[in-house]
């Protein structure tokens, strides 16, 4: 989509309009071009997006907030439900963009709307501007595959946007970097990854799945580069999504670097909420139980957000197990060991990087394949 002529024309027209429009009409401009984007690429989703925007705007007060959140979550669950091939978690349904059954951008839109309703209810969003909300909701560079924005940061960035030549330069550079990742690296790696389905030896399975891990990163970070780059051309800054995730030395570090706009969202609205509520119960004196429950709830939500198919839930639960185990490992590791020169050495760090990559790659088997195929590939990879 990002390299389609009509998308490029839309970006150019939006950039020109933003450059000449008075600052007070920036949000109106972005909202109009966001509507134009939906009219061009997904006209059938336009009414749903418009309706949800109005619902989020109107949901003032505690009960209305929960009603709004229930509506958004219900719609997302409806569209993410397993249907036909999706029930088996068909290959190719990934985190980059929604499947054809889901209205364009709804997965990302849903999280942004929930964020808006929660923060307004908390009093952290005081702005009651419908044009600002509309610009936030339909901001088209981020509508397909994120990053997931935060309302306050976004409106502040729109207000400060000045369309400098430096922004255009940095944005174009970022778009070109994304293009290189997508067209050269991801496509090259996807060719190797495609052999995973027919793998008959552990070596081939590992090679194909390692290539898939890298291809997924290249693909997804390329989409983020496009979104961040196009936004920056307009002078608007949106959150970063990746920070060299495959250099992570442990699984917690990985989730601090992978799909960061999603991981911070679930941290703020799932993990902290669940954990905080559990700390108010008699479990307060059993923090290990609270940690386990909070991590599991969080990663099941992450899995379900990618799709309500068994394989995504297994993938989420797998990461819940990994992060929980790492939590206890950190707690139980003796201070003397953690502080030792050997533990702090580059060799141990490098070992952590390799182990984390292997663990993430094993999990991605369930992300890529339906459960029977995933089990077969996993048994192959684990020499079982």
């Amino acid at each position, binding site marked *: 989509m990002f390299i389609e002529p009509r998308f490029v024309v839309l970006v150019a027209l939006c950039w020109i309009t933003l450059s000449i429009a008075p600052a007070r009409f920036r949000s109106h401009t972005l909202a109009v071009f966001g509507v134009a984007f939906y009219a061009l690429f997904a006209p059938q989703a336009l009414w749903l997006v418009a309706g949800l925007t109005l619902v989020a705007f109107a949901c003032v007060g505690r009960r209305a907030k929960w009603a709004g959140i229930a509506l958004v979550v219900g719609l997302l669950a409806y569209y993410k439900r397993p249907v036909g091939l999706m029930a088996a978690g068909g290959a190719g349904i990934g985190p980059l963009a929604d499947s054809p059954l889901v209205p364009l951008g709804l997965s990302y839109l849903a999280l942004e709307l929930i964020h808006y309703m929660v923060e307004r209810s908390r009093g952290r969003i005081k702005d009651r501007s419908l044009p600002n909300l509309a610009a936030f909701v339909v901001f088209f560079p981020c509508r397909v595959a994120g990053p997931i924005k935060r309302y306050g940061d976004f409106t502040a960035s729109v207000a400060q946007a000045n369309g400098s030549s430096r922004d255009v330069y940095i944005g174009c550079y970022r778009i070109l970097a994304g293009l290189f990742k997508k067209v050269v690296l991801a496509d090259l790696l996807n060719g190797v990854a495609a052999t995973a389905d027919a793998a008959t030896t552990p070596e081939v399975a590992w090679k194909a799945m390692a290539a898939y891990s890298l291809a997924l990163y290249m693909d997804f970070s390329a989409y983020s580069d496009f979104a961040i780059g196009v936004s920056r051309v307009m002078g608007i800054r949106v959150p970063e999504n990746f920070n060299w995730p495959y250099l992570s030395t442990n699984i917690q570090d990985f989730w601090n670097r992978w799909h960061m706009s999603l991981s911070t969202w679930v941290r703020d609205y799932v993990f902290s909420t669940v954990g905080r509520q559990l700390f108010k119960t008699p479990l307060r004196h059993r*923090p290990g139980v609270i940690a386990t429950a909070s991590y599991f709830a969080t990663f099941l939500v992450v899995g379900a957000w990618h799709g309500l198919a068994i394989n995504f839930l297994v993938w989420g639960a797998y990461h819940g197990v990994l992060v929980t185990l790492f*939590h206890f490992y950190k707690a139980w590791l003796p201070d003397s060991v953690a502080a030792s020169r050997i533990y*702090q050495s580059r060799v141990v760090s490098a070992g952590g990087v390799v182990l984390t990559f292997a663990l993430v790659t094993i999990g991605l088997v369930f992300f890529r394949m339906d459960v029977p195929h995933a089990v077969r590939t996993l048994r192959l990879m684990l020499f079982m």
Partner: protein
Amino acid sequence: MSATDDRIRTFIETKFKPRAGGRQFDDDTPLFTSGIVDSFGVLELIAFLEDAFAIDIDVNRFEVRDFDTVRKVASLVATISGAPGGH
């Protein structure tokens, strides 16, 4: 330096080992952004503060950055418990 600061610092030093690996640690060392305290650690810190200082922390009013240093945490406790100024 107050008794509040001392209790908070002692809890963090005992629980999160901020000096591990030869790291420097003082009242202005970032806790969350430096990785000393993780997301769950913030929840544990809040639970400790509520128990130790008999306060109720409304998380809707505060953000993670409000807990990012010993000094900020002590200031937050002072604000909630109505103590003058804190520091």
